[in-house]
């Protein structure tokens, strides 16, 4: 005889809207009990095809049109159809209300997992983490994307699709060196954005003209002229510099540069908090669903299915496995959050020594603090414990091209912990993953050429793609562009140059 527990939220593996709503309510109740602070959210049920559409638009519900998104779509479609990849179970959008997509093919268990993971895990991270708070305006992003798409469509009508496409190509090429790393970006709003866009157009144009108005005075003391450098401080945000200062861009072109820059900026925190964010969401789906199980609200079958996919997600293959492709952010993040909880609840002597400030503290408070105030780099530097390094059996390899062989620098042992942790943290520093390229000088008195400098780190050169990117920079700038890099002796040497004379007709 089987007696079904009346307390189960729902039965079976097929989902219904009602069952999803029930699960959401239960998960929400548990999340609240744990004190998760989230935006409102809405769940949207979509097909696999729509999921691929969403992939191509980086998950955003609206996006401007560009061939590169078509390329990504074809790529995804092709791999999916051939069975090379499964689609992600979920996409969640950092907006207010936070939108989580549920794919129709998923079973009820998977939908519950996605709700816990995305609608509560990621959602609370978006709301709490300082990077997201500072850099993104969750309440306005969708409006801004609508504005962007309409504006770009309008430009295509007015100026031709090819002209717009070429411009967006160039902007995309610079998008990874087109973010502010240290300044706060102002919040976005559709209405204000539209209104201000016109003002900006006229104002900016007048500024630019001003920059070039005075003819060069050859009689002037060359030394004095040299002193007034432009820009006065080097600028690391190339797109920003081009938007504000490229002499020949039309107002609409500046606006498009700005749009690409703004959207790139919006995604920047996501790139900086992958381990933390995914780990956090994974930790919470694990914790929330386990709590439901302890309360008897979900069945054993549910838990088996859930644990099966959970385990797949957090699997970390070792370095010599065929499946190895770097450290799995889900695995590391999940392990770290669990480890922090362990340190809070059951610290060992080692933990007390390494983490005196959190060992034995209230884990919820510690979690909130850590989630609010860190990014991947600092999170690893602060919280990666020796125990976890042993569990993952981490080791650091130094690849120096002056030496014939690779060198093992540090392994998971007492003398190696600190170095290992420092190196792993450095690995998540986007500042060292993206090349450090800065606008160094504009030859205001002469040929208006733009000089960029590449500040190399540990002798790492720029990849060959710089040639193609420089073409794009030259197209945007409208005059000659140079790229410099230091020689081993410390002198600056031009490694690439583009002559580009574009005169306006008339």
């Amino acid at each position, binding site marked *: 005889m089987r007696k079904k527990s009346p307390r189960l939220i729902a039965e079976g593996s097929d989902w219904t809207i009602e069952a999803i709503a029930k699960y959401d309510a239960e998960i929400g109740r548990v999340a609240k009990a744990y004190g998760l602070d989230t935006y409102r959210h809405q769940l949207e049920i979509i097909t696999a095809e*729509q999921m691929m559409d969403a992939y*191509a638009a980086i998950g955003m519900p609206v996006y401007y049109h560009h*061939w590169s998104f078509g390329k990504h779509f074809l790529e995804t479609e092709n791999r999916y159809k051939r069975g090379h990849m499964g689609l992600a179970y979920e996409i969640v959008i950092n907006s207010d209300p936070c939108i989580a997509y549920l794919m129709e093919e998923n079973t009820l268990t998977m939908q519950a997992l996605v709700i816990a993971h995305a609608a509560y895990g990621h959602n609370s991270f978006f709301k709490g983490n300082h990077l997201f708070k500072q850099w993104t305006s969750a309440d306005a992003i969708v409006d801004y994307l609508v504005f962007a798409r309409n504006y770009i469509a309008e430009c295509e009508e007015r100026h031709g699709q090819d002209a717009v496409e070429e411009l967006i190509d160039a902007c995309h090429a610079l998008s990874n060196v087109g973010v502010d790393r240290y300044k706060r970006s102002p919040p976005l709003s559709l209405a204000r954005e539209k209104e201000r866009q016109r003002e900006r157009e006229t104002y900016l144009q007048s500024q630019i003209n001003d920059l070039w108005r005075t003819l060069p005075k050859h009689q002037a003391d060359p030394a004095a002229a040299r002193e007034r450098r432009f820009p006065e401080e080097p600028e690391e945000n190339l797109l920003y510099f081009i938007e504000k200062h490229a002499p020949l861009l039309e107002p609409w072109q500046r606006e498009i540069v700005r749009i690409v820059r703004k959207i790139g900026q919006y995604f920047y925190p996501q790139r900086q908090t992958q381990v933390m964010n995914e780990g956090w969401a994974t930790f919470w789906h694990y914790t929330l669903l386990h709590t439901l199980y302890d309360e008897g609200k979900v069945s054993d079958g549910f838990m088996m299915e859930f644990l099966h996919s959970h385990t797949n997600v957090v699997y970390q293959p070792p370095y010599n496995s065929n499946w190895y492709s770097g450290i799995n952010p889900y695995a590391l993040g999940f392990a770290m959050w669990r480890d922090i909880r362990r340190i809070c609840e059951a610290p060992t002597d080692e933990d007390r020594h390494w983490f005196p400030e959190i060992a034995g503290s209230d884990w919820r408070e510690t979690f909130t603090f850590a989630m609010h105030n860190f990014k991947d780099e600092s999170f690893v530097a602060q919280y990666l414990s020796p125990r976890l390094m042993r569990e993952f059996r981490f080791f*650091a390899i130094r690849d120096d091209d002056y030496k014939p*062989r*690779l060198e093992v620098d540090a392994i998971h042992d007492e003398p190696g912990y600190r170095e290992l942790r420092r190196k792993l943290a450095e*690995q998540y520093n986007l500042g060292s993953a993206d090349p450090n390229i800065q606008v160094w000088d504009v030859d205001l008195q002469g040929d208006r050429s733009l000089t960029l400098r590449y500040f190399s780190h540990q002798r790492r050169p720029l990849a060959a793609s710089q040639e193609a990117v420089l073409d794009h920079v030259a197209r945007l700038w409208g005059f000659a562009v140079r790229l410099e890099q230091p020689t081993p002796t410390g002198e600056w040497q031009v490694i690439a140059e583009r002559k580009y004379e574009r005169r306006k007709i008339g």
Partner: protein
Amino acid sequence: MTVRIIDRRLDSRNKSSINRSRFIHRFKGQIRKAVADAIAHRGIRDLQNGEKIGIPGKDISEPQFRIGRGGVRDVVHPGNDRFHRGDEVERPLGGGAGQGKGKASPDGEGMDEFVFTLTRDEFLDIFFDELALPNLVKRQLARIDDYKRVRAGYTQSGVPTNINLVRTMRGAAGRRIAVGGPYAARLRELQAELDEALKETPGDPQEIERLQREIACLRARQEAIPFVDPFDLRYSNRIRIPQPSTQAVMFCLMDVSGSMDEAKKQMAKRFFMLLYLFLNRNYEHIEVVFIRHHTLAEEVDEDTFFHARETGGTIVSTALQLMRDIIAERYATSAWNIYGAQASDGDNWNDDSPLCRELLADAILPKVQYFAYIEISDSEPQNLWREYEELAASHAGHFAMQRIAAASDIYPVFRELFRRRLA
């Protein structure tokens, strides 16, 4: 508070279709080349499917400033099973140490061929583009729906615009009569009784009142019968029926003598494909007969037709004779629409060409809907061409011929054929 759940499954699909078509537009050159390769490997009947296309990854890369290989690089890996601090290891082949960098991997990667699938429409679009087909023809060929809407009586359900008033009102009148009939009969009886009762001098007021009440009651009932009831509504019915379609047979004749090289055969293949596509639009069932010839003609399968190589001289009339025989044997003109397409490089025995003309004029052209001849050659036309030119004059609209240097020259051969269909 319950959560908002929105079912988006029925929302517009293909959000990416614009981006997709932009991608195809942008790389049209490369894609066209890939499509040409694909056509070479396809059967001529196989135009209903999309195609997997590969274009060089280098052309479509999206460059960004990246850090390249070289310099000093520290990478942390998991799963240590043998290393100690200070160990030295050989560099893995293929520069694997940078493996952990994931996306930031230098340019060496991403250069593979970018493979994706064109839909049928996209594939045909590019195929047509090369053939320089007029738009109207393109649309006609690519269209899939093949139905005609015709009237088919009346139904009881439908949309308000299709209500048929005459039928509806006729039905309503009939219903009113049918439903109200018993009342009317009874009413007449009662009225007669009432008249009778009123005539009697010592009237029976109770009886009169009863009759009057009953009459009033029946009148009320009669009036309660609705003038038009939903039950009466009739809608004009239209159904989709497939357009009359029949069967056709298409003869592909090709010279396979030594002078027909691979490029010429590919050109001929496009010619056959276009005819097939046209027939496919207009006929339910199509058979294709492949006849190849040098000094002898034989019926072969498609693969042999396009790929086997032969050498030797050329006697065109053998192929025409074989076609004539096959028609007589298997394809009665009463049941089949017959189309012929012949491709050659123009070589023929001089003595044979008049025979070809006679064969065509007497035995073949009277039986076929259309016969098209292409000569893939850039040298001076020879006697076969001149003989055929006479036919073109006398059989205009039936017979078309064209000398071809590029694929875009093929369409004019069929111009007459398509024009007739479109008219």
